């Protein structure tokens, strides 16, 4: 005779709570996996975007064409150069050195090269030299030398018509020309 099992032990069935827990775990797993996949995709997209931007940037930096100069470039540079020229200190030296016997008759200032030429009427050479000495005080040039230099002077005895000597108020005056350089660094056009 064989053994008779006759087993009526209840078959285990998951309860609703267990099923709910399993469903929740499954849902949470699906959501977590989805979030991870989505985040990885987003990171990959951002990385490719960054790589593309880097490539574009490097390519554009090497292929930039030089910027053409604007049509007003030359005029603007000349204006700035004239504006930066040393008008004021040049005139101030002339005014500070005014003395009897020496009379500036004309001032010619070329802002392009910064050269100022002043014609002087003077009574004699001593007065002219004193005048030069006075206007050179305190304004040496970049290398420490006197800024104003005598370019041209005419002898007092030259009375020939058309010479540089002139008759002013009954007195005979000689004509001399002095010159100085007032260069200044023009401001840059590039900001």
């Amino acid at each position, binding site marked *: *005779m064989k053994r008779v*099992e006759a*087993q009526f032990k*209840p078959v285990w069935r998951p309860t609703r709570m267990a099923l709910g827990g399993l469903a929740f775990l499954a849902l949470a797993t699906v959501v977590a996996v989805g979030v991870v996949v989505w985040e990885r995709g987003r990171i990959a997209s951002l990385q490719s975007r960054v790589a593309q931007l880097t490539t574009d940037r490097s390519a554009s930096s090497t292929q930039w064409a030089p910027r053409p100069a604007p049509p007003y470039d030359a005029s603007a540079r000349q204006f700035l150069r004239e504006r930066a020229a040393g008008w004021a200190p040049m005139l101030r030296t002339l005014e500070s050195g005014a003395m009897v016997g020496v009379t500036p008759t004309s001032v010619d200032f070329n802002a392009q090269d910064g050269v100022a030429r002043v014609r002087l009427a003077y009574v004699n050479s001593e007065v002219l030299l004193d005048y030069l000495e006075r206007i050179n005080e305190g304004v040496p040039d970049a290398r420490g030398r006197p800024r104003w230099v005598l370019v041209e002077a005419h002898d007092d005895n030259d009375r020939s018509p058309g010479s540089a000597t002139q008759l002013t108020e009954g007195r005979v005056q000689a004509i001399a020309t002095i010159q100085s350089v007032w260069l200044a660094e023009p401001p840059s056009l590039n900001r």
Partner: protein
Amino acid sequence: MRSGGWTLGGQTQAWEAHEVPGQGLERWARDIGQRHGRPWRKARADLWLSGGLARPFLFGPVAGIKGWQEAEVVAAAAAPEWTGLAGPCRVHLEAWPGEASTVCTALDASLSDAIESTARACRITWRNVRPRWAVALDAALGKRPSTALFAVSEEDAFTLLCESTSSSPASPGMSVAATYSPALDEAEARALWHRMRISFGVEDHDAVQAHVSTPGQGMSMLPEPGGSWPPATGAMT
């Protein structure tokens, strides 16, 4: 009057008879909970049912059955007629009934549901829910493997299992599986016993009968307190 019992930790704790099996089940579940005493852990207990509750019968062969579920449905439908159980039944088939008859045990469906719901409500895990006569048969086969005729006399039923010794060895099988409930009196049981022995040609040493004493005395009844169940079987000729 139907009876049953339970064991905890391999030791028999109670065997009682109740008019209504559900009431007995509730009391056993309550006792198990008190004896277990560890609410954070489920109690693991065995539940034994008397022959009046779990009744065997021979089922089949039935041709045309396609699966186990269908076979169980057919057996459950036939169980009330063959066993005398009143309501719908749950069955346990020992073998496939398509080609040869097999032993089928029937249990009242409402009791089966109550066993399951009680376990769920009282946090009990049933390790076994088996008829007591099946456990007694295990013990008998353990002592005498050649057993061919086996009977269990209980307070509410007399269960008889017989295997014909003249049947072909190629197709061994049970010839008789039946429960008589209420239990037969002494004379009827003895007459049936002898008739079976003669009809199926069973030798004396292959015939075993187990007698379970009348319940109602708690732990002093069979099985003995602290012992495994069933503890004793006796041969009756």
